[in-house]
């Protein structure tokens, strides 16, 4: 249903159709500036997950099965939206810190960096939400440390229109850091590192499934997981002396990100240094109608 107007949003909140939750993540790994990090693997609340499943077999993610930020139960046929988000970092090393809130949809675990052969995925399971893949992005998350040699890889996938055989540009793995949770295609400099999400073939706006991954060098050790995600919202913690707050109704032109039933929701972060021993605290308000 959503909100026909501001009054509908206010009425929904006053009627109690809302869930207020909090989070506290405390990474125990040494990250570096500019290399994105996956908070879903960090200890705290919500409890971490580690992309543990059969290698190369698509595995869906859900609130009920995997955890993530507690956003309340299913509300269909109503629709749930992120209304407000607050984030607080209190260690200087942790700021500024850009955060994306993601709906984690599905992952393909344990891509092996040690082979140059094509690694084919099992797609018995399909996207549980945003099923056509529109807007769905891919991130490569390190789950077993690599040797920082800067190997390259590309991904063959089916796009949002259902067209198979689409191919990403060649991506270069980070040479900056090698801790679990690192988003492998990020660091502050260097060609072939496009950001937290893989660059897609020209014209594509999303990914429905991954068909194969191929490491072109195949000389490194380490494992990574391909994760399909839907970006929901952004918040940036700029300093340790003030909380960052986003009211998506007032600050984002009324665009309150949708939260699907049973969505697994968590953060990725672009830190400005090591997050080890720092904490990310905050709260979120979800409203449905």
């Amino acid at each position, binding site marked *: 249903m959503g909100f026909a107007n501001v009054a509908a949003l206010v009425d929904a909140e006053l009627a109690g159709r809302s869930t207020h939750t*909090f989070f506290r993540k405390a990474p125990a790994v040494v990250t570096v500036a500019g290399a994105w990090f996956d908070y879903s693997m960090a200890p705290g609340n919500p409890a971490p997950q580690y992309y543990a499943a059969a290698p190369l077999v698509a595995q869906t993610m859900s609130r009920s099965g995997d955890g993530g930020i507690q956003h309340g139960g299913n509300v269909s046929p109503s629709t749930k939206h992120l209304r407000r988000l607050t984030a*607080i970092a209190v260690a200087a090393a942790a700021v500024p810190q850009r955060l994306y809130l993601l709906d984690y949809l599905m992952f393909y675990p344990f891509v092996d960096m040690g082979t140059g052969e094509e690694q084919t995925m099992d797609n018995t399971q399909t996207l549980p939400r945003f099923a056509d893949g529109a807007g769905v992005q891919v991130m490569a998350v390190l789950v077993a440390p690599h040797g920082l040699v800067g190997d390259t890889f590309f991904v063959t996938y089916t796009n949002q229109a259902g067209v198979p055989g689409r191919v990403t540009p060649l991506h270069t793995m980070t040479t900056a850091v090698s801790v679990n949770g690192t988003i492998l295609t990020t660091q502050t400099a260097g060609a072939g590192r496009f950001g937290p999400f893989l660059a897609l073939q020209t014209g594509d706006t999303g990914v429905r499934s991954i068909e194969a991954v191929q490491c072109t060098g195949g000389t490194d050790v380490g494992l990574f997981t391909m994760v399909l995600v839907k970006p929901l919202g952004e918040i940036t913690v700029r300093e340790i002396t003030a*909380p960052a707050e986003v009211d998506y109704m007032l600050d984002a032109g009324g665009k309150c990100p949708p939260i699907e039933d049973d969505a697994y929701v968590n953060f990725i972060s672009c830190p400005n240094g090591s997050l080890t021993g720092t904490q990310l605290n905050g709260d979120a308000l979800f409203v449905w109608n």
Partner: protein
Amino acid sequence: MSGFSSLDDLINEMTVNGKFLRADWNKLTHATGVQAAGTWYALPHATGNPAAMTLGAVGTNLAFHPAYEGMAGSIYHGGPVAPDTKHLINASAFSAAATTMPAIFMLVDMIGWYPVTTTTTTGNQALINSKTFTATAATPTVLTLAATWDAQTGTPLRFTTTTTLPAGLSLNTTYYWSRTGPGTGNVATSYANLAAGTFVACSDTGTGTHTATVYIGDRQPTHGAGVQAFLTPSVALGAGTPNIQLTYTDASGNTGNTTPTTLPISNATAPIGQIEYSGTGAGKCGPFVPLAAGDAGIRQVDQFNYNVTHTSGTTNVVLARPLLTLPMTTIGVAAERDLVNQLPSMPRVYDGACLVWLMYAGAATPVASAFYGHLDLAWG
């Protein structure tokens, strides 16, 4: 018309008609045990100003106990203003104590609680929300509740009957209990009358069987809307990590709803004041117990369940409605909230509201750490 028709009207009510109150407060963190990082605490039963509320074994175990303005532990906000409506327009909080940051404070209207001294009991325990009663034909009438419910002063009640209520009592009307003894009391038609000692008279005893039932719906836009539940010990809990489940009546009046199958897990040896299932790791959430999918609030809690025991202690199932949050990052710097320019703007503070704070400790916070702040309220 109650409320404010415009910003000009708000300014006029405050500056011309004097319908404004600033309420300053200070609360200390609980005196036992460092407040653990990543954990929520309830401050109504911590010391400070307002003084500590007495939770726990007051009245009958498992029976609803009301919370309302004027009782120890509630922030004074100016008393009843009906037919006007009262609203929060500004709020602040800060601390100068070391290692108190970060913290998030949440202001709630605490509706009431169910004390649970039987924390060594497993399985569903029925909570008390209603009893049959008799009433005298007298001025004021004296009501006697069936055994056993030692209802406490301020309990909001509505009456039903199998035949005819005593003349002087009405259906679909909220009355407020004034305790005269265990299970006996008078009733008033408003918090103002309760405070003034103005009670209802009855000219007969009615016919049939009468029932008094807790009714909290005058403190929300609709009965139960936005009301959440949390659990906090008033006597430290002993060993044990039980799963917690509540059975409740939701804001639509559906009975028998239960909290989700992924249940919060109580903390072993949770100290006084801790929201006992909050923290970090699996099974931890907070500050409120998750509700069944799609539920928008709680009218009453019907059953309480630990699947295994704590070895000792007293907890409280508290009903509360959140009003605002104040995130703090820096010692000595006030967190401030302009509530006029929020959405929804100016949370309403209902007559009788019991304003108390919940606290999220972002860092290990020492005992007796002082927090201060204020609330600005206006009515019209």
